[in-house]
Structure formats: structure tokens, C-alpha cells
């Protein structure tokens, strides 16, 4: 499954900026390049690189800003989701305007079951606090 590490998030950010400025584009579709799955969520390997709580906060905050851009995009965003979609992938699913879902999709939010963590770069928690 695809994971959302910092490199991926910054690429999404760059592309969204480009698309927002391009008047020839009127909508956006997200699809997975991997058959049968969408997004697993954040790349948990980055947790190993955290030296202080602030490191984690910084990564989560940067990701939340990018998620917010997806949520507030002026152009409609569609996600074509086939297969499993977990954790941070579900946050993307929650943020976008329209979904095209295929049969046999598996959506689950229990990644915090095995991770002592808050899913979706903490976006659920930040949304709860709004």
C-alpha cells in the first residue's frame, strides 16, 4: 500500500499549488498506482527518526497544513478508491469532495490499535478540537 511520508506529502503540496494556479484544470482525481489498495497512512518508519517530541509535532503539523490545502481546494477533488484504505488514507478520504468506490473496498480506522499514535498525522484529533 502507498504510504504518506514527508517526501510524498511535499510532492502533493507542490502539485496542488501548480493545479490551483492552472486555470485550464477544473478538477482533480487521485488514484493509486498500486492495484487493489489506496493509502495505508503515514510512514511509521519516520517515527524512528524523531529525537524529541517536537520533531513529531513538526512533521504532523506540516502534514496537517497539506491536508488542509486538500480540504480547502477550490477545485473539486475526487478519489478513486479500490481496495484497502487505512489510517491517514482515510483522512484523505474524509477531506475530499467526492469518492468513486469500487467493490471489495476495505475501510478501517483501527491502525491506532497497534500504534500508540493518533491517526492521520493527528488530523482527527485536530478536527475534534475545532
Amino acid at each position, binding site marked *: *500500500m502507498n504510504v*504518506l511520508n514527508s*517526501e510524498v506529502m511535499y510532492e502533493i503540496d507542490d*502539485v496542488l499549488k501548480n493545479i490551483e494556479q492552472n486555470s*485550464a*484544470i477544473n478538477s*482533480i482525481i487521485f488514484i493509486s*498506482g*498500486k492495484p487493489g489498495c489506496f493509502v*495505508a497512512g503515514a510512514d511509521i518508519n519516520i517515527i524512528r527518526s524523531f529525537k524529541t517530541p517536537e520533531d513529531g509535532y513538526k512533521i504532523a503539523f506540516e502534514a496537517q497544513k497539506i491536508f488542509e490545502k486538500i480540504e480547502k481546494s477550490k477545485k473539486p477533488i475526487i478519489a478513486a478508491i479500490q481496495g484497502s484504505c487505512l489510517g491517514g488514507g482515510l483522512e484523505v478520504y474524509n477531506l475530499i469532495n467526492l469518492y468513486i468506490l469500487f467493490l471489495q473496498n476495505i475501510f478501517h480506522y483501527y491502525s491506532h490499535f497497534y500504534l500508540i499514535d493518533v491517526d492521520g498525522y493527528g488530523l482527527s484529533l485536530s478536527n475534534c478540537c475545532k
Partner: protein
Amino acid sequence: MRAMSISTNLKHLKYKVVDNVAVLTLDSPGVKVYIIYNSTSFINNSINKINLIFIVI
């Protein structure tokens, strides 16, 4: 159908425009996720409310 490839330095996203629609194909470094259904016999009965387990590798 008009398709236009956008040349960028993207490593994990493919970005093309088809008929004024931006198609973003996400192909990032992946993890293998094993999904086990009805796993009550797989794990201890004391936590038999669990019916779905994800194992991320």
C-alpha cells in the same frame, strides 16, 4: 480525449491532465498490509471482539 503529460521532478506522483482534469497517480514507497478476517480463533478468546486485524510490514 486530450491528454497532456506534465513534466516534473516528481518521484512518487504521476501527474497528467486529461480533458481539463488533473489525474494524480500516487505510487509511493509501500508497505505490505495483511488483512485477516474473523480472526477470533487466531488470537486469544479474551479479546474476541476483534474481527479484523491489520499487520503492517
